[in-house]
């Protein structure tokens, strides 16, 4: 029986795992803190369970942060950990120094010196630990002298805290691959008083209320999940009573509600949030039942519109069902419907989409419009492990795609391909490519042979290994730069080169990019001193499009190993119209 209480669900899961002789876990997490952090376990566990992980959580003894940094295996065990979460507070690590800071300016620089040494030990941990490392930001101290209730003057505590926070941000910013958990921000969001439970602090060195632990569990869970779960790619928006109040077809340009006064303000702020999402690489699309001219007029002429036409990657304004419009948006943008979030104010439309396209995440405009601007901010739909350059430029790249599409329709396939001046660059992935490579590994569902997901640290380890190659592929044409759109991971096994991972973004298919990529992979395999390549096709619900890929390129199937094999001498040639290079160093 499943329970509605998430903590209970976690306890039942832990009990069930204990019954098993060799339980399997895919997210072994250790949590440690400068305070008692036991209450985090059930909340974090429940969140990870809800995201379909099989988590194991170990809680390290109280206040062992330094020891963990110096030798994490000694404290956390030698088993393979996927993630380590470190929560710390200024008032636990440096209580006396903090108090001195209030009276003596010199004390602050001493404290910063201590922080520097703490961040140096974190750097050491980062080097010795390969999994995901999550560290909290300094939070405003809950201690005498730092009260925020003085009348008539700015709090001295806040000035000190700001200096500390800024110093820490610079220090931790120097470390690569440390995921920051904004404990201070979460505490602001919850409220200092709501977040703390002074009774439990006094009795058990456990500072937080149960409700705040739940918030922490959810936020840390989101950070961990973002390493492996792909975020949504596009918000499909209704127009009337979603992007503005009223109905444009009836109320007209002057009659709709959008501006500085409520309710127009709620819609306007919602648009601001959408623009922020766009800057993170989320695509925006419209699915609305309207006359296209009426709707475009608002985008082009209404003074209070935050979004402009160029911010929207796909418009579907017509009188057809939303289900059809949404399907067309997915097709136009070349993404699966499961990466769409649909926002509408109409319960019936939401119901129909939920029923006919269950993979689309539907969100209803709230009854209370004051909550509309924050509607998507509170969700985990757009949790990116890292925002890459490709993300920021996505809408512009889509615009270039539209021009390509129009040109293509005007000429033959052959002429079109030649006219593109395709340039393809295949290279061994360097440090600066790892975030994007990892992103593609974790979000590509269709053109992918094996769909093996990996964290950035795992990818990095492969890139540094001498028996493996992590290849990226960059594509440009005369209309623009696609950026890094293909990834292959090759592993040398004796004389054979195993294609562990082979994937491409669907946007670049069908112009000879596949042929080129496989030809360059073969070239790279030669440098590993191999004479053949082999690879598996692992079918999933979504990667049917590459079922015959290896066959197409003359690989032959070996039923014994369930692999496709080809001699390097028989690898495909690079099509004539493509200008391709391979760079391994």
């Amino acid at each position, binding site marked *: 029986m499943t329970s509605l209480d998430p903590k209970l669900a976690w306890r039942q899961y832990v009990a069930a795992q204990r019954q098993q002789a060799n339980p399997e876990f895919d997210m072994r997490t250790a949590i440690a803190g400068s305070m*008692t952090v*036991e*209450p985090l376990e059930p909340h974090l566990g429940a969140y990870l369970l809800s995201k379909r992980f099989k988590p194991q959580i170990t809680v390290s003894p109280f206040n062992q942060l330094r020891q963990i940094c110096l030798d994490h295996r000694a404290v956390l065990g030698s088993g393979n950990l996927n993630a380590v979460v470190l929560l710390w507070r200024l008032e636990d690590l440096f209580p006396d120094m903090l108090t001195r800071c209030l009276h003596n300016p010199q004390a602050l620089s001493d404290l910063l010196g201590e922080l520097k040494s703490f961040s140096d030990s974190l750097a050491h941990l980062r080097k010795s630990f390969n999994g995901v490392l999550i560290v909290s930001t300094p939070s405003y101290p809950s201690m005498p002298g730092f009260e925020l209730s003085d009348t008539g003057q700015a709090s001295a505590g806040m000035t000190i805290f700001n200096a500390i926070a800024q110093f820490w941000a610079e220090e931790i910013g120097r470390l690569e691959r440390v995921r920051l958990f904004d404990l201070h921000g979460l505490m602001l969001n919850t409220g200092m008083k709501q977040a703390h439970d002074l*009774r*439990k602090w*006094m*009795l*058990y060195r*456990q500072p937080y209320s*149960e409700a705040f632990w739940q918030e922490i569990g959810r936020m840390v869970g989101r950070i961990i999940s973002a390493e492996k779960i792909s975020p949504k790619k596009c918000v499909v928006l209704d127009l009337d009573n979603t992007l503005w109040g009223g109905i444009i077809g009836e109320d007209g340009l002057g009659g709709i509600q959008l501006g500085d006064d409520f309710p127009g303000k709620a819609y306007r702020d919602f648009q601001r949030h959408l623009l922020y999402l766009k800057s993170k690489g989320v695509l925006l699309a419209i699915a609305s039942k309207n006359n296209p001219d009426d709707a475009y007029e608002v985008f082009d002429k209404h003074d209070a519109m935050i979004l402009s036409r160029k911010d929207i990657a796909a418009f579907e304004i017509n009188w057809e069902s939303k289900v059809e419009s949404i399907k067309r948006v997915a097709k136009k943008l070349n993404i699966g419907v499961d990466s769409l979030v649909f926002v509408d104010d109409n319960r019936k439309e939401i119901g129909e989409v939920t029923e006919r396209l269950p993979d689309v995440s539907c969100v209803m405009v709230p009854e209370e419009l004051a909550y509309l601007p924050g509607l998507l901010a509170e969700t985990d739909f757009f949790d990116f492990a890292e925002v890459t350059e490709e993300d920021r430029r996505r809408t512009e790249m889509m615009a270039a795609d539209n021009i390509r599409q129009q040109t293509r329709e005007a000429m033959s396939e052959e002429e079109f391909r030649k006219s593109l001046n395709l340039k393809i660059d295949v290279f061994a992935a360097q440090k600066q490519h790892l975030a994007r490579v990892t992103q593609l590994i974790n979000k590509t569902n269709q053109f992918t042979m094996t769909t093996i997901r990996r964290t950035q640290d795992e990818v990095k380890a492969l890139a540094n290994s001498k028996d493996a190659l992590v290849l990226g592929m960059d594509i440009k044409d005369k209309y623009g730069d696609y950026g890094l759109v293909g990834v292959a991971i090759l592993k040398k096994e004796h004389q054979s080169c195993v294609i562990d991972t082979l994937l491409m973004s669907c946007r670049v298919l069908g112009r000879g990019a596949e042929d080129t990529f496989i030809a360059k992979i073969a070239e790279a395999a030669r440098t590993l001193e191999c004479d053949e390549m082999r690879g598996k096709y692992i079918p999933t619900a979504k990667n049917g499009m590459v079922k015959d890929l290896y066959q197409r390129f003359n690989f032959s199937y070996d039923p014994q190993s369930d692999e496709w094999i080809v001699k390097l001498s028989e690898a495909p040639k690079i099509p004539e119209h493509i200008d391709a290079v391979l760079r391994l160093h």
Partner: protein
Amino acid sequence: VKQWDSLAAMKLVSAIEEKFKIRLSTKEIMKMSTIGLARKTLRSKNVAV
């Protein structure tokens, strides 16, 4: 009880507060050193145990 420590006490207090929707003061928590005393404290807060 073997393995009984302050951590276990903290978890028990949290569970009691959650289960009976009450809030215990530090004095009340300190007093609850045996099952009998815990029952007495809870009854004083109108919890039927």
